[in-house]
């Protein structure tokens, strides 16, 4: 805890955003959590991941509309605007090491998708 003093984990709440069935397998949706846009992806096999919805290259809020897949084993989403890939697990941009987007903790609670933001 003390290693990351700027982030106060205790402020982050778990929010129910939708039913798992609201997300078509292998695609994403965008959730509005307290003014913040979070892209939530459902990968086949019912794993879910959450990233910031803003594409840092175009500044458009469209990350949830990207195609998901894997590149050399890494789960990724491709930005729908200029097609850079971002790791679903770390938010790292594969094409540009200097660019990383926020990730959020997610879990499924009795068929409901919960995001911590």
């Amino acid at each position, binding site marked *: 805890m003390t290693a990351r003093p700027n982030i106060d984990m205790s402020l982050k709440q778990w929010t129910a*955003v*939708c039913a798992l069935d*609201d*997300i*078509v*397998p*292998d*695609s994403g*949706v*965008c*959730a*509005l959590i307290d003014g913040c*846009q979070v892209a*939530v992806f459902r*990968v*086949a096999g019912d794993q879910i991941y959450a990233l910031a919805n*803003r594409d840092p290259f*175009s*500044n*458009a*809020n*469209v990350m949830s*509309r*990207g*195609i*998901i*897949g*894997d*590149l*050399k*084993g890494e*789960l*990724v989403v*491709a930005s*729908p*605007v200029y*097609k850079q*890939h971002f790791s679903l697990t770390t938010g790292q941009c594969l094409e540009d090491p200097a660019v990383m987007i926020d990730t959020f903790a997610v879990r499924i609670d009795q068929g409901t998708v919960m995001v911590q933001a």
Partner: protein
Amino acid sequence: MSTQKIVVIGNGMVGQRFLEQLTIRMNSDQVEITVFCEEPRAAYDRVQLTSFFAGKSAIDLSVVPERFFEEKAITLRLNDPVIAIDRAKKTVSSARYREVPYDKLVLATGSYPFVPPIPGHDRRGCYVYRSIEDLEVIRAAAKKSRIGTVVGGGLLGLEAAKALQDLGLDTHVVEFAPRLMAVQLDEAGGRLLQRKIEALGVTVHTAKSTKEIVNGETHAHCMVFADGSALETDLIVYSAGIRPHDALARAAKLAVGERGGISIDGYCRTSDPDIYAIGECALWNGRIFGLVAPGYQMAEIAARHVAGDESIRFDGADMSTKLKLMGVDVASLGDAMGKTAGALDYIYTDPVQGIYKKLVVSADGKQLLGAILVGDAGEYGGLLQMTLNAIPLSEHPEDLILPAREGGAKGLGVDMLPAGALICSCNSVTKGAICDAVVAGCTTVGALKSTTKAGSSCGGCSPMVKQILDAELRKQGVEVKNHLCEHFPYSRQELFHLVRVGSIKAFDDLITKHGQGRGCDICKPAVASILASCWNEFVLKPKHAPLQDTNDRFLANMQKDGSYSIVPRVPGGEITPEKLIVLGAVAKKYRLYTKITGGQRIDLFGARVEQLPLIWRELVDAGFESGHAYGKALRTVKSCVGSTWCRYGVQDSVGMAIALENRYRGLRSPHKLKMGVSGCTRECAEAQAKDVGIIATEKGWNLYVCGNGGIKPRHADLLATGIDDATLQKYIDRFLMFYIRTGDRLQRTSTWLENLEGGIDYVKQVVCEDSLGIGAELEADMQKLVDTYECEWKNAINDPESLKRFRHFVNSDAPDSNVVFVAERGQIRPARDDEKETKTIETALV
């Protein structure tokens, strides 16, 4: 060794093949060759004779390689029939030369059409159908005639009938037997063929024997039949069979058959060992072979024998045939009539589609003996190989002719064929020879064609040649480094094939069977496009939606700020004032930016994702359809105003553009497709910059393909000239489907063509001459897509599942606060980042 004098009588297809075979084995120091030819021109492709009417010239039909006679130092005497052979002196004499000596003489005199000796058979206006000269006089006579009648309903008779019909005559076929193609077809097959041909407007009279031909009352002739009925006609073409040209041989007292034909042995020698006979004049084992392939075999065997090679003997030939008669597929192979003792039949008929298929199998059900196919001869190649190579039948022989059913194994892979399997029967090329050529470095069908001659005559074997080539290359581990991405070790073309042949309907099935991993933004949209091109299912079905590229996913083009544009289809650019008003009213209501596009339609920009269905509901209600501006699909067919208004126009270019746009709308392809139709050569529609461009002429349409604007502009190439509406549609169907099957991902037709082996000439062969024999299949595939077209937006607004996705937030109805507009020139535009910060904003909320 002194030079041998060789004299060849007849320079038809077989005589010519003999010369080629001989001169590759012996050079001009060893032989001195003289050829006599009764016709005024050297050998030409008689098999394709009918294409003379379709615009082929005598030069196009020639089968003689350029400068052949000069280079091989062969003396060719055209227009000079041989009139006698003196076997004692070993000389021949012709109309113009006396006593030309020979050491070896080759008779390649072919055959002549049989004309039944009925009274009146030699009246003026009665013709035969054998040479270019015959066709020239028929063409001239047709200009002055209204009704044309062919005597004989066999293979050639029907071909002649097609020609008469194409010449614009009201065409009749009179057949003595109770059915058409009595030699190749059974009763049911013949009946179906007759139905199909009659549906095309030809009147068929079977079981009619002509008693005499006399003066007609309203037309030149009246054919009186034995049953008392009669038929009036202006011209008559006899096609009642052929008779071998054996008069010279008879006069020289060579052995001939009872019903004609010069008797030969396994080396094609006649009863005089210094005289050979080959081709249609020859009689082997009591049989005459009226096809070119056996003739070619004889030519090679005789040439080898003259050169001292006794390694191969003629031992009969397969008389299986596959052809397209008036657009109807007909094939007959092996023991089609089931004459083998105990033979069993499997029969499949589809009266609606007009398909009849019969398999003849051995009494124990283990061997395929023969088959008849009418209406759809797609299985011909595979079945022929099974008969010729005695490949054992599976437990369900019927699967070979039944439409593919779930789990039913169909056809046979080329890998199962033995090396000796004859693949190209026209040129006697075996599977082994093709494999050897591949090993020796041939990597394309074109290269195989020139090296082995496989596929260079009738073209029927080309699909199989290609399959063998692919299989061999794959075996050699030839890396065609054209893999789609890390998830699929295949090119787009290969994936297309796998999807189509394996009836694969979902990305997950494809990647499980043929790929690895989860896929990515390269392969998913590419496969989505292939699936759409094959099966045309709604692209937003849950199994397809996640595969779609950004724009297809929301059936609209995403703009830089995440908003969307809307482009309704305006076929041909023609739009009514009422519809223009609707577009204006909708744009006004939703405050959209409007612009006329470069594709003759109107783009409405600035719609938020959740507004798309609302806007489209209004547009669909007003009769608009999706314009597919978002898809790798047909975009627009641009038109000029054409003959309706323009003082120079020669055809209705707007009407044609609308028809084409309505036909191909929604068609998914490797990349976007654009077309244009201009009403005259002034080319106001810039058709030559399009993937498919059409320019009207006085004589019909000129069709151009593979043009491109964009990044690397390219003028389109001319594919066909002066064609009518139906041919135009046929060629475009074939061209587009061929491109869709073989193009790479995101490869426009222009780059596709530039990477295509053989270039535009190859495209011409495939599209206009159907050299691969897949024309009908390509057309049928296209027709299926046309028939299953549905407007994607109409589907989407009526599908609650799809509608759910047109929201910015899954858990809120709020719009995306980042989509903001400012005013400019009286309309909206996306706010720049600095403007968003200073908040000089006018939101576009309704």
